[in-house]
């Protein structure tokens, strides 16, 4: 048997354990550094870490079985996996083998990239193609949405704690400027340009219900002519001010935040809203 075949068989034998170990190590590592929330909702943290530990334990055990450390009645190693390895060679066509090699290469690339690159938040590129201006956010449950009736009588302190999620849910319920008088906003998010108007941008956050795959951008419009001189898309900013009629003719938003102050801030440790 050629050494090439031998290499392939060995690789095929270990690929699952190695790929699983890579995700498991990554998950545990990111859980420790607090970055796992960049990928999944916090409610799955414990479950994910437990299963990652289980996976690593099995991986280590698999290596121990191969070294013969685990009680082994049969040292000839004519075990099932070796046999199915041989059968695989017989069953596989050239094409299947090539596909399987390509899959493994792709997977290895992703695993390497995952561990090598710093985990990162989704960017404005994804926000803009998921339609930040859509007003369907009011029904996100499990998240802290605000109702018009309950919010009407709240004090200024309450409104300062509202995130873009609560504000956008209010905006989708009422566009009466009088409602927003004396309700100071103080929101943080990243800048997403309004596709229709150059003098409006959205302070945006991703809301995730399960994991980054379902991340839905939610934002509130900010009316600030010439914002492009000071800020660029994807910048994290804190905007304070009050909502009023949108001064922009081109924008589809009726109301917009009239900023009293817009400041650059660092990306929060926990960039998503839940």
């Amino acid at each position, binding site marked *: 048997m050629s050494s090439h075949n031998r290499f392939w068989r060995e690789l095929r034998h270990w690929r699952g354990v190695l790929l699983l170990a890579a995700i498991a190590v990554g998950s545990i590592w990111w859980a420790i550094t607090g970055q796992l929330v960049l990928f999944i909702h916090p409610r799955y943290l414990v479950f994910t870490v437990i299963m990652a530990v289980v996976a690593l334990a099995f991986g280590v055990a698999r290596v121990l079985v191969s070294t013969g450390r685990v009680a082994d009645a049969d040292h000839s190693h004519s075990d099932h996996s070796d046999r199915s390895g041989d059968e695989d060679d017989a069953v596989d066509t050239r094409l299947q083998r090539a596909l399987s090699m390509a899959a493994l290469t792709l997977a290895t690339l*992703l695993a390497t990239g995952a561990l090598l690159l710093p985990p990162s938040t989704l960017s404005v590129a994804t926000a803009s*193609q998921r339609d930040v201006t859509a007003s369907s956010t009011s029904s996100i*449950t499990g998240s802290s949405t605000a109702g018009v009736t309950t919010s009407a009588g709240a004090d200024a302190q309450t409104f300062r704690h509202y995130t873009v999620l609560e504000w956008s849910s209010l905006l989708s319920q009422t566009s009466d400027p009088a409602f927003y008088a004396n309700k100071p906003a103080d929101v943080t998010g990243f800048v997403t340009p309004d596709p229709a108007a150059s003098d409006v941008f959205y302070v945006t956050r991703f809301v995730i*219900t399960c994991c980054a795959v379902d991340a839905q951008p939610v934002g509130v419009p900010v009316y600030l002519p010439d914002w492009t001189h000071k800020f660029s898309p994807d910048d994290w900013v804190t905007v304070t001010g009050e909502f009023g009629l949108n001064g922009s003719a081109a924008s589809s938003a009726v109301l917009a935040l009239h900023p009293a102050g817009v400041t650059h801030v660092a990306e929060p440790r926990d960039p998503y809203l839940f």
Partner: protein
Amino acid sequence: MTQRSGVLNRPSVVHAGASRRRGLWIPAAGLVLLCALGLVRIFSPVQGGLLPDRVQDGVTLALSVLIESMPFVVLGIVFSIVVRIWLPEAAIMRVLPRNPLARRAVVSMIGMFLPVCECGNVPLARGLMVRGLTVAESMTFLFAAPIINPITIITTHQAFGFDDGILVGRLVGGFVIANLLGWVFSRHPNPESLLTPRFAAECRLPEHDEHGSRLERSIRLFGRETAMLLPALFVGAIAAALVQTLVPRSVLVALGSNPVWSIAAMLVLAFVISVCSNVDAFFILPFASTFLPGSVVVFLLFGAMLDIKMIALLRTTFTSRTLLQVATIIVLASAAVGVIVNVLA
């Protein structure tokens, strides 16, 4: 085991010349690579911005699919090991009714006791097939269990309550479609031809051929199942991320208000999104006001049974031809359920 003593020695006889030690240099190299990557990561000054936004987002999305489904896949493999190695062979077969229809109906309820989502179901269904369930029966399990299981029922109820018949539509629809699939494929003259040759070969082998303690066999089985499933899971995650970065989601949502197009859009959305059935109700909830209830049911039915990631995973077990037939049936049946819910609601 004694009654199998006739075949017990077969492998050693056939492979008497193949005795060799499994080399450990590949896991060793993997460990070194892991450590090297870790060290580079810890000591490198790079803080992101290395890749263009879209590529970086693609990596984040792919990783998010992977990390979200990894625990369920591991759990599924563990359940599958229990079924294949630790449960007495007769245990499952004895409790199942003899009548094929009743049998499949009971099989589609197994998810109530082994709650894993669709990706975890793949190893479990493989285990059940090796343990003697027919291909049609395990298909029934495979496609019913992601929907008819306690976690999915609870999350769907949390998201929708009993509004618009969404929960009922999902449960009844899931049960009917899975049993329909089971019935259709039970008519197949040669069920083994539905499986990939490799998996068919694995089913033919008597499980007790293997040497070693139960613990050792469990660990080996874990290695084999991961070797099959993990590359598929990675490829599925990459494909799902790629499609998501390329197809604007707003395009699909824009189709939502048309009764026919919204069903088509939901089928595509469900296929692309690749979130597990345990949590997909929360995902679709924000769109519930845009889409008709029947279309939401279509998403919840089809997405739980098939998506990009699932196709990659299922391909480890079924041939492409089988998957195409399965997909056709599920698409048509879930669209039909969607239309019915739309008419009734």
